[in-house]
C-alpha cells in the first residue's frame, strides 16, 4: 500500500462556532451564522449580512492571551491552529513539523484603519497597525504560537488558498520533507473585501441561497480552519487513531476570465476529475461533496455544470455549507476540510440551507437536511478562486 497522509487533528472557528463540537452542533441543528455586521463601521451595515465570528478582537486577544494589536486574521488562525494541534495530541517538537497556512487579506483588517490616517498625512497612522500587513506575517505569528520553525509557508490563490495549502502539506509529507504539517487557512472579515465584493455586485442583501435557482449572490464570512496531517511513521509511532486520510487533490486553472468561471466549468471539472484519478476512485465512490457553492449566479451554474458532466444523474449527496458560514475566502478550504472530515468521522452529511428550487439548467437538488447513519467513505471538497484557480481535494475513511 502506498504511504498515506493521515488526518490527526481538526481545529475550526467560524460564524457557527468557536470549536469543533459547537460547530458540529450548529451543522446538526441547521443553525446559520449569518447576521448583521457589527465588527466595524460601514455604510453597508444593516444592508449586507455577513458571517462574523462571535468574538471581538478584544475578547479573542484575552481568550488567547495574545497582545491586542495583533491582526484578527492572525488571532483567528491561532485559535483554530491551537485547536487542531491540541486535538491531535502530538508534540510538534518531536517531529519535523511545518505550518502551511493560507490567507487572502492577511493583516488588511488593521491596514485599512492605518490608511485612513496615512492618506491625510503620510507621517501619520500607527505603524503597529501595518507591521503585520503581509499575508506571510499571519503565518509567522501562528508558527510562533505553535513553536514551529522547521518550515513555514503561505498560499494565496484567492478563495482556493487553503485547499492548496492542505494539498501542498500532503505533498511535502509524501516527499518525505516533513513528518507533521499543520495546514489550513485564516481570513478575517474586512471593509476592504466587503467593499470589493460589493463593487462586483455579487453580495446578497439577504442570507445567501447556494445552488438555488433564485440565488442572488454570496455573504462574506470569516474564520479559520486547520487540520494536522501526519505521515505513516508518525501515526504508528504516536499510536494515533486517525479516521481519515488525504486520498487525492488537484489544482487546475480555468484560464477563462479573471473573475468569472467558464460556463462549462472546465477548470472545476478537471480539478475534480484529476483528484478522482489520484485517489484511484470513480465518481460513484464519492459519498458527499462539500461544494464551493458561493451562491453567485456564475459560480453555482459553472460548478453545477461541471458536476453534472462528471457525475451525470447519479451525483452524490452534496451541499454548500457557505449558507451557514458565509464565504470565508482564503479560510474556506480549511474550514470546509474540517466539515468534510467531520462528515467522515460522524458518518453524516450536512444540509444546504435555504434551498428551494433547482437551477433549471442543471437540475441538481442538494442535501436538504442533516442526515446521519450513512456510509460516508469518500468526501470531495471544492474550492475555486478569482483568477480561475480551481482546486479539489478528496478525504477518505481509514
Amino acid at each position, binding site marked *: 500500500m502506498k504511504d498515506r497522509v493521515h488526518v490527526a487533528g481538526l481545529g475550526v472557528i467560524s460564524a457557527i462556532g468557536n470549536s469543533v463540537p459547537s460547530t458540529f452542533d450548529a451543522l446538526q441543528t441547521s443553525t446559520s451564522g449569518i447576521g448583521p455586521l457589527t465588527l466595524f463601521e460601514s455604510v453597508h451595515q444593516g444592508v449586507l449580512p455577513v458571517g462574523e465570528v462571535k468574538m471581538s478582537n478584544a475578547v479573542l486577544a484575552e481568550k488567547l492571551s495574545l497582545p491586542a494589536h495583533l491582526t484578527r486574521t492572525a488571532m483567528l488562525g491561532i485559535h483554530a491552529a491551537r485547536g487542531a494541534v491540541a486535538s491531535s495530541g502530538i508534540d510538534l517538537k518531536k517531529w519535523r513539523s511545518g505550518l502551511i497556512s493560507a490567507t487572502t487579506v492577511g493583516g488588511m483588517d488593521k491596514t485599512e484603519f492605518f490608511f485612513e490616517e496615512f492618506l491625510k498625512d503620510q507621517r501619520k497612522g500607527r505603524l503597529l497597525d*501595518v507591521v503585520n500587513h503581509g499575508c506571510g506575517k499571519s503565518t509567522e505569528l501562528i508558527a510562533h504560537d505553535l513553536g514551529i520553525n522547521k518550515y513555514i509557508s503561505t498560499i494565496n*490563490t484567492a478563495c482556493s488558498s487553503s485547499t492548496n495549502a492542505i494539498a501542498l502539506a500532503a505533498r511535502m509529507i509524501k516527499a518525505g520533507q516533513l513528518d507533521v504539517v499543520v495546514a489550513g487557512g485564516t481570513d478575517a472579515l474586512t471593509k476592504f473585501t466587503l*467593499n470589493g465584493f*460589493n463593487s462586483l455586485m455579487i453580495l446578497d442583501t439577504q442570507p445567501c441561497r447556494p445552488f438555488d435557482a433564485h440565488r442572488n449572490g454570496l455573504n462574506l464570512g470569516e474564520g479559520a480552519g486547520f487540520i494536522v496531517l501526519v505521515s505513516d511513521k508518525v501515526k504508528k509511532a504516536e499510536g494515533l487513531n486517525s479516521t481519515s486520510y488525504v486520498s487525492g487533490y488537484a*489544482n487546475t486553472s480555468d484560464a*477563462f476570465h*479573471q473573475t468569472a468561471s467558464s460556463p462549462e466549468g472546465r477548470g472545476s471539472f478537471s480539478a475534480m476529475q484529476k483528484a478522482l484519478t489520484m485517489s484511484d476512485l470513480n465518481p460513484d465512490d464519492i459519498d458527499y461533496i462539500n461544494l464551493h457553492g458561493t451562491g453567485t449566479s456564475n459560480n453555482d451554474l459553472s460548478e453545477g455544470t461541471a458536476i453534472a458532466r462528471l457525475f451525470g444523474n447519479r451525483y452524490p449527496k452534496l451541499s454548500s455549507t457557505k449558507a451557514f458560514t458565509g464565504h470565508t475566502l482564503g479560510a474556506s478550504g480549511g474550514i470546509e476540510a474540517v466539515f468534510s472530515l467531520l462528515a467522515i468521522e460522524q458518518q453524516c452529511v450536512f444540509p444546504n440551507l435555504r434551498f428551494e428550487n433547482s437551477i433549471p439548467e442543471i437540475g441538481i437538488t442538494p442535501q436538504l437536511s442533516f442526515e446521519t447513519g450513512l456510509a460516508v467513505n469518500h468526501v470531495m471538497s471544492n474550492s475555486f478562486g478569482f*483568477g480561475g484557480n480551481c482546486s479539489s481535494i478528496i478525504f477518505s475513511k481509514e
Partner: protein
Amino acid sequence: MTVYINGMGAVSPQQIWIKEMLLSDPSNYTGNRLSCIEPDYTQFIDPKYLRRMSRILKMGVASSAMALHEAGVRIPDGIITGTGYGCLEDTEIFLHKMIELREQALNPTPFIQSTHNTIGSQIALLLMCQGYNQTHTQEGFSFESALLDAMMALNGNPNQVLLTGGVDEITDASHQIQERFGIFRRTSLLSLDLFNSSSKGTLHGEGAFYFALSGKKGKETSASIDSVTTFYNPSREELITGIHEFVQSTSLSLEELDLVLIGKCGDANLDRVTDDISKQSFGSAPIGLFKHLSGEYPTASAFALWLGARIIQTQQIPSAVLNESIRPLRNVLIYNPYFRHYHSLILLRAC
C-alpha cells in the same frame, strides 16, 4: 533532485535583457529606491490587455514571456509564483478609493487585481494554460517556496516545464511606510557604493523574474538547480549547522564552490551577522554581492538565481558582483538572508 533552467526572463533595476552584456554597465541610483527599468511591453503583451494591467502585472507577464521564449516553450505545464507583497498598486488604489468615496460607487477592477494570485492567473489567462497554478507568499521565502514546489513536482514528473517566478513591486505608499520603519538608508549615496559605506539601512528594490524549469534539459539550458533549502528564524548555531549539512549533502567540498553569491544588504548591523555566518560557513570561497544591483525585497533571491545562472552560462562574473576573474565557473551557491528571520540556500551547477 536536479532541475534545469531552460529559459529565464527578468525585469529588474538593471538593464539585463541582453545576455552578452551581463551587467557590463550597471545602473547606479541616487537615493534609497531602485525601480525597475521596464521594457517596451508591446513586444510581449497585446496592447488591448496592457491598458488594464498594473505595473507588477506587466513586469510579471513580460518576464514570463521572455522565459518561455528563451526556453522555446509555448504553454508551460504549470505556473508557480512567489511574491512577498503581491499586487500593492491595485490594493492601494482600491483602499484609497474606498476611503475617499466613502464605500460608494467603487470600480471593481483594482479589487479584482489586488490578490496575490493575479500575476500567475494573468499569465495563465493570456497563455490559456489550464495546468497547475500556485502562488506562494512568505516574506523572504516567497520565491524559495515556489522553487521547492516546482522541484517537488518535477521530481514526480520530470518531463513537465514549470514556469516559476519571483515578483515584487515598490509603490510610493509601500516605500513611504517601510521607510518609516527605518529599514532604508537615510544618507544620500550612490547605490553602487552601498558596500563602501558602513551605515544603517538598506536600499529598497523590486523585480520580476520567471524561470522555465524542467527535469529535462533544453536547448538554452543555462544551469541546473541542485538543491534549495530554507531556515526560518534559526539561532546562529542552527544556521551554521544547517548550512554545513546542506553543503555536505551536495557532496561538494568548500574548495569546489567557485562562487558564493551572498545577499548582504548594506545595513551595517545585518551585514555583521551575515559576515559572521559566511566566515563560519564558506571558508575561503570567492564571494560576490548583488543587493546593490537589485535592492532588498522579499523575492531578491530570484535576482540572485538569474545572476548565478547567467554567470555560469557566460562564464564571466560582472565586476560589480566580484572584481576577480575565476574560471571555470561550475558551482555557484546563493546564500540569501532576508532581514533577521529568513535565510535560504540555492545551489546552481553548470550542466
